[in-house]
């Protein structure tokens, strides 16, 4: 049997607007994934450590009060330091349109905006993880 997709979700920064991240965490769980929801007010290091300990395939973070570019720049750098470049990173929330290319440039795979159907997020995660797992198999 194929290994379940493991996802770490949460919020980093001065922002407790948790509605979106709870809804997405629930949708991913209902799609059969293992979701570790860390809650709001997390530190970069805590999320990275959880990714390591939980052997996660995916990280999903949510931002509604700004700071995403600075926080994600730091986050992606730490992820890389830990040789975790294979982890799929997605974010969502109130994100300025001009920040989206910047975020993608530093390695955030997708930015989901308000009004996105959770089905689209699930579909994206499944496709991306399958792609990555296929790649890993080929490399072996």
């Amino acid at each position, binding site marked *: 049997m194929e290994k379940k997709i493991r996802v770490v979700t949460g919020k980093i*920064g*001065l*922002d*407790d607007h*948790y*509605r979106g991240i*709870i*809804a997405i965490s*629930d*949708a991913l769980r209902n799609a059969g994934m293992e979701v570790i929801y860390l*809650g*709001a*007010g997390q*530190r970069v290091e805590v999320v990275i450590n959880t990714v390591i300990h939980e052997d996660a395939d995916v990280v999903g973070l949510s931002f509604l*009060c*700004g*700071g*995403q*570019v*600075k*926080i994600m720049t730091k986050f992606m750098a730490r992820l890389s330091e830990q040789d975790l470049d294979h982890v799929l990173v997605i974010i969502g929330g*109130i994100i*300025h*349109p*001009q920040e989206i290319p910047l975020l993608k440039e530093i390695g955030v795979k997708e930015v989901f*905006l*308000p*009004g996105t*159907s*959770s*089905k689209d997020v699930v579909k994206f995660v499944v496709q991306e993880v399958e792609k990555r797992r296929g790649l890993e198999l080929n490399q072996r």
Partner: protein
Amino acid sequence: MTKVGETTKKYREKVTDFTTPSGITVNEVYTPEDNAGIDYERDIGLPGQYPYTRGHHPLMYRGKLWNIREIAGHTSPKAFNKRCKYLLELGQGVLAWEIDGSTFYGIEPDQPYAEGQLGVTGVTLHSLRDVEVLCEGLPLDELSISCDTYCPDIWQSYILVARKRGYDISQLRGVGGGIFYYGPAVFPSKLDWLWSNGGFSSSGRWSNDFLEYLLKNMPKWNIWYTSSYDFREAGGDAVQEIAFTLSIRDEILREMLRRGIDVNTTARQLSPVLSSDRDFFEEIAKMRAARRIWARTMKEKFGATDPKAMQMRFHVDVSGVNYTRQQPLVNIARGTMGTLSAVLGGCMGIQNPSYDEAWATPTEEAVRVAIRTQQVVRYESGVARVADPLAGSYYVEWLTSKLEERIMEMYSKIEEMGGWIEVLTSGWVQNKLSEGLLEIQKKVESGQRHVIGVNCHTIPPEEDYQPEIYVPDSTEVEEYLAEYNGFKQKRDMKRLKEALENLRHGTEMTDDNLVPYVFEALEADATFPEIIGVLRMADGMEYDWAGEREYPF
């Protein structure tokens, strides 16, 4: 081309959803029979008369229009002070300060954890000096100020500034105070700001002490003791919103009773913030039911005798979570509906979000549209002419009574479970809200709950309206940071250390009120994070919430 039969289908389209968002199924029509159990004198009466179903005041908006209280706040105290003056020039009689994340969560502005967020969602305030800069030239004796701060730090600074400028603080008007009672329900990571080790934490105690201070010294101050709007934004329904509002009120009444303050004194100053969500009549009926229950429970449960303690006076925030990113101009219609139901529900003030809510912090233009929306309702629609114009509507009266029944059920249930603090600290409240938001999300995704522009009447993104985006001026924040560092370095460290040590000592003196200790610390130029940090340490917690700073002494 439209499909064959499509036009006929649209022509024949009818209402198919007969249940309100809080789960009340409604009939196609209401008649006097549905109101048979309602007694006019007992249950409805006149505005300004017990049980105040129809409003807290006999004249309602002929006596005073609701406050247009649009929230504002950006970058530095200096820059935002200019904006405040501009808003007052526009004719606003009140100000609603919005603070940024570093201020709200009580961390230093130059900490890594605040990076990129400084001054983004509100003004950044960290010391008495900052509040002094923000208040420069503002008529503190005429203004009514509001601000949703977790701790009383900003208010205590405001009081010091007012005193220094020679104002009689007993005459100050404002809306603010004890947000900490509702906070952990919607800011789950901050429970310890209220509660730790099985009792009020030191910062929880500080907020209680400040409520006591307000009740004893500032009779014109409305104590914004819960933003029940947030319960709705987090997934709660109208019944939960009011049941929680009442349960928190009871918790505060009892805490103040323990401090020797009678229920009349406390209740007459308590003023919650409610939501105006999307079901027009349910929201109106909810506000009417809330006033009725408030009056009855104050009188019958707490034995209040002062009519003012039985009158529920509240501000309304129009729901922002219903605003969409798609077709953002449609949000102006949502704001109008929400404003209208708040007015027909008899509120005392309204904040309606700007149409770019789901895009960014609003632009000046978007805020102006929000203010103008309220002004259309005020001056063009004529709805404010008559107090509680919907009274006597078979439907509205039936729905008011129905909601009253449901709210009473939940309110009693919370009481049976041990009261607000118990259901909050056990996680019951948070679970209820999460269940609600998942239910709503399910209905949106299945199409059962219509959201124009999202799951129906959509347009391709490339055809959609692109609003201008507000980006905070980073030079204002940089300038602030430079000045802040200068200020911190020039402080009298001996005096500061003494004041912080006194505060720490104050936390051990359980019969003392912490407010004077905090005044002393503020006057010694302690920063807000330093004050909060000392209180955290007193509870055995890490000095800095974000784990980045050490106690300086």
